[in-house]
């Protein structure tokens, strides 16, 4: 009987799977990241069928080549990086260019107010449920490199995001800021309609 796995770290589970072939350790890793990984993939491919296939590919690849991952406390980053590569391949295979490496500008993060004092709050203009739905809708309209960061920040630290997308931390923060800013602009346009 295997010990309880829910309290174990990612690397402990990976080691259990690598050394003992523990199916339960593999399944625990899948359960731990299934929602965030699926949501990340879906946010970029915008197609449930393709998202399901890519999600499986990521974990199948780990299942078959688990020994190629060396436990360094970065399993989560490794998982999202693998997913990112699969997503890029998916678009390449379908001859649909997807640029995740684009940035609006190099350099440091520049903050400026996205809502002037005289503008009504978006939060007041929409009900909570409608607001959540509209936020989801407008997030899908963001340029891919901004959308990616806006979603990834739900699951990874900015330092981890910078590693996964291979961009400087300042650029990642700038992309996130611009993504959030654009979402607010799109929401305002929706309210004005």
């Amino acid at each position: 009987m295997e010990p309880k796995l829910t309290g174990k770290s990612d690397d402990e589970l990976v080691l259990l799977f690598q050394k003992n072939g523990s199916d339960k350790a593999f399944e625990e890793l899948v359960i731990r990241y299934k929602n965030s990984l699926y949501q990340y993939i879906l946010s970029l491919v915008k197609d449930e069928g393709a998202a399901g296939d890519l999600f499986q590919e990521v974990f199948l690849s780990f299942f078959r080549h688990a020994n190629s991952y060396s436990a360094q406390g970065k399993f989560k980053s490794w998982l999202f990086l693998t997913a990112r590569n699969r997503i890029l391949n998916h678009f390449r295979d379908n001859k649909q260019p997807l640029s995740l490496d684009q940035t609006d500008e190099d350099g440091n993060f520049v903050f400026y107010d996205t809502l002037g004092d005289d503008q009504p709050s978006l939060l007041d203009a929409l009900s909570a449920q409608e607001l959540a739905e509209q936020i989801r809708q407008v997030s899908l309209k963001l340029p891919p490199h901004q959308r990616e960061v806006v979603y990834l920040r739900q699951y990874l630290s900015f330092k981890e995001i910078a590693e996964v997308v291979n961009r400087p931390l300042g650029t990642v923060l700038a992309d996130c800021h611009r993504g959030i800013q654009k979402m607010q602009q799109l929401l305002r346009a929706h309210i004005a309609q």
Partner: protein
Amino acid sequence: MKCENIFLYVNGELDASQRAAFKQHLQTCAACRRQLQFLEQADIALAAKAAPEEVVNRLFAKTTRKRRFLTGWKPVLAGIVAASVLGFLFLPSSENNTAIRTEVLAYMQYDLDEDYQNFANDLALFESEF
């Protein structure tokens, strides 16, 4: 403390002193307070929803559950079937069973694994619906 730290603040990536300084900054910066409110709403709206069960079940069918198929009494059964087929193939031949043997050999080269997978997927779908 600058407004740009808002994302690191929301993600809990500031150290204790930076966090305290940003909290103080929030008291005087209306733009950051509004931004913070919006980010909290965005976090709720974009929080990961459950991945479809069917997707996860299909993954397990291809990995951990497939492995289980190879354990227990099933390999014994598979061995008996294989021995029967081999016995049939290496029995003294007659004209009648030569054609059958050819068919059996062709069938053995067919990708049964894919067929089994499709069947398992159909079954999983059926069970989930009924």
